[in-house]
């Protein structure tokens, strides 16, 4: 969770002054997995307990926390910054052929590629690079100063995307491998009403603060 969430948000907040100096405006793309948000363990956001930790739950919490923290950052910096949480699909890169992996696992991805491609959205490396870069396009604009929807619904022949909080051009985007939107699950409505956006942001900032002060974060 550290590399996928805390590390990335820490990086973003550190270089924020440089991002705000961009005249584009700046785009921040975090490549992982919007849409994995399912289980939400309110009593253990960082999944400190080994009982709560697992592949599914960590992916889920990273997706929730990223959605909330990205919405916070765009609201703080209207007109300046767009953040994108991008699901890349399956990209059969060299990562699957690590020699420390068991032979059968490597074999599945080496020889099973045609079957995998039928089951999962799969991009080749070149297309993956192009689509990841495209997340910096005007399809994903920053939030307007008044927080209202973008006045234009499209840029040329490409539509303006909808933000994770339902605003067209709202600045924080959950994006699928094909650069279309990943819907924000319906349980977010209740979580927002319960104030989880602020709680998730405070949890994250508190972690940074404690560590910076040389203390051990226990939240």
């Amino acid at each position: 969770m550290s590399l996928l969430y805390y590390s990335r948000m820490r990086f973003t907040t550190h270089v924020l002054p440089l991002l705000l100096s961009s005249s584009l405006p700046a785009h921040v793309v975090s490549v992982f997995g919007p849409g994995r948000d399912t289980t939400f363990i309110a009593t253990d956001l960082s999944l400190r307990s080994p009982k709560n930790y697992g592949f599914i739950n960590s992916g889920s919490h990273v997706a929730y926390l990223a959605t909330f923290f990205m919405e916070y950052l765009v609201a703080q910096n209207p007109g300046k910054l767009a953040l994108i949480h991008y699901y890349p699909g399956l990209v059969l890169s060299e990562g699957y052929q690590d020699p420390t992996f068991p032979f059968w696992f490597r074999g599945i991805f080496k020889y099973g590629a045609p079957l995998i491609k039928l089951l999962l959205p799969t991009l080749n490396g070149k297309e993956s690079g192009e689509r990841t870069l495209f997340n910096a396009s005007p399809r994903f604009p920053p939030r307007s100063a008044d927080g209202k929807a973008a006045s234009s619904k499209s840029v040329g022949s490409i539509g303006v995307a909808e933000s994770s909080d339902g605003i067209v051009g709202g600045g924080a985007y959950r994006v699928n491998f094909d650069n279309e939107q990943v819907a924000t699950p319906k349980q977010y409505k209740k979580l927002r009403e319960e104030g989880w956006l602020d709680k998730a942001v405070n949890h994250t900032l508190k972690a940074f603060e404690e560590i910076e002060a040389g203390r051990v974060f226990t939240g």
Partner: protein
Amino acid sequence: MVKLNLVQSSNATLVASQPLVAVFVGGTSGIGAHTIKSLAATHGEGGKGLRAYIVGRNAKAAEEIMSDCQKMCPTGQFRFIRANDLALMKDVDLVCAELIRTEEKEANITGGTSRIDILVMTQAIFKPWDPRKGRSKNFPALSICFSFQALC
């Protein structure tokens, strides 16, 4: 599905619009590496200018990627910033400080504003088996699964 030709033409418009500064954290392999190569290839010889940073652990992989990029984009500046373990917030702090210093210096030399236009983060570890391998020694956790306990 946004059609691939629209994706490509939009990327071409981006590199023709203005000089770009881009940072690729975890850009020494996988999707990060594909993305920086895609940016360099799209820029080619005709773009408005490019300065790209790769932040990662593998200096050799970074050198190879930067050399490929330099061939595709001869006027581009490609820089490597070495990280040790970005799961640790302290390392993120050090790397960011070096990145900011380097960018300020480069912007000074070339006469532009120091900035980041595009930040792409792909740092991750894909190790379903024994994720402790390759971790720093001060990482006491049973596995990276519990990495939060060693953030500092």
